């Protein structure tokens, strides 16, 4: 390591971040657990969903109580939107409620796999970019859709590693490599991570960051997993910067082959 390494940061639409782990806020047992998990993860960008206010009069702590506006940037999503129109409406509502321009754009094509509808996604992205949103689309791990999303002005692309909440890890690292080669915007792996080594792999491949929710919130001990993910992301990033050795078929001795006793 160099004596005084430059701060390892990344930028999104002109904003600088040091954490390469983005976390969701769904599926936690309580707002307090959410708050502690976010804290341990070190995440600076935190996703939330947009839903109807409960009009039955019940009120308690909300997800916003788990966040510190000074430390955390809100990334509202358009989860569960199945049409471009619903995703656009949801993004507009999120901006009105939160007064931020960031949106994690999801247009879902199928309820069982939750795979993105890339055609509708591209359509929604164009509209929202034109309205000044900083659009971060959740998309397939397909280099072509990633390129198209970048070309219409998305601030990042977020290909899935595997289906949302599946914990299957990164199923197609080779596609991710191609996506990374051609990307001029940050590439974030969004969805599919199951454990810390999956997160590390995303960063080792050269991805800018990784976004996850279920892998932390659904772990037996979400707080320990939040920390594990933070360390996994940091380890993966360092390994990427360090530059791994080439894979080879045969051994390459670590100890000298000369000077042996006889």
């Amino acid at each position: 390591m160099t004596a005084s390494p430059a701060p390892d940061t990344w930028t999104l639409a002109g904003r600088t971040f040091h954490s390469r782990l983005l976390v969701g806020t769904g599926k936690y047992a309580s707002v307090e657990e959410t708050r502690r998990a976010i804290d341990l993860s070190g995440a600076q960008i935190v996703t939330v969903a947009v839903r109807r206010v409960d009009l039955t009069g019940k009120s308690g702590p909300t997800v916003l109580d788990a966040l510190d506006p000074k430390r955390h940037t809100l990334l509202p999503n358009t989860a569960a939107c199945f049409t471009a129109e619903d995703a656009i409406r949801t993004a507009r509502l999120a901006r009105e409620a939160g007064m931020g321009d960031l949106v994690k754009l999801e247009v879902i094509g199928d309820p069982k796999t939750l795979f993105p509808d890339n055609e509708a996604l591209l359509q929604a992205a164009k509209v929202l970019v034109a309205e000044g949103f900083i659009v971060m689309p959740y998309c397939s791990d397909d280099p072509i859709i990633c390129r198209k999303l970048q070309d219409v002005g998305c601030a990042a692309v977020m290909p899935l590693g595997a289906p949302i909440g599946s914990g299957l890890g990164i199923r197609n690292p080779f596609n991710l490599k191609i996506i990374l080669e051609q990307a001029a915007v940050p590439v974030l792996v969004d969805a599919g991570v199951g454990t810390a080594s999956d997160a590390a792999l995303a960063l080792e491949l050269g991805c800018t960051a990784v976004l996850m929710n279920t892998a932390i919130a659904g772990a037996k001990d979400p707080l320990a997993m939040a920390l594990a993910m933070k360390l996994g992301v940091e380890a993966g990033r360092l390994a990427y910067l360090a530059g791994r050795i080439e894979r080879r078929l045969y051994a390459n001795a670590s100890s000298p082959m000369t000077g042996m006793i006889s």
Partner: protein
Amino acid sequence: MPPERTLPPQLHLTVNGELRSVAVGHTVADLLRDLDIRSVAVAVERNREVVRRAQHAETRLADGDVIEVVQFVGGG
């Protein structure tokens, strides 16, 4: 003949998927007050268009309006 009694005129709205009636002249701000929604972190949509916060007090509701009031919840 007894004087005919007339109910005050009402507007029929759909708010978050439920039918509601409010008095004629009610604004978006009045509706939020009726619903006891005081948080600033909500957004209102009227007939699929966002009503900006600054317009809540001057946006009068109309019969048949479809209103959505949303907030942030946990999500990934």
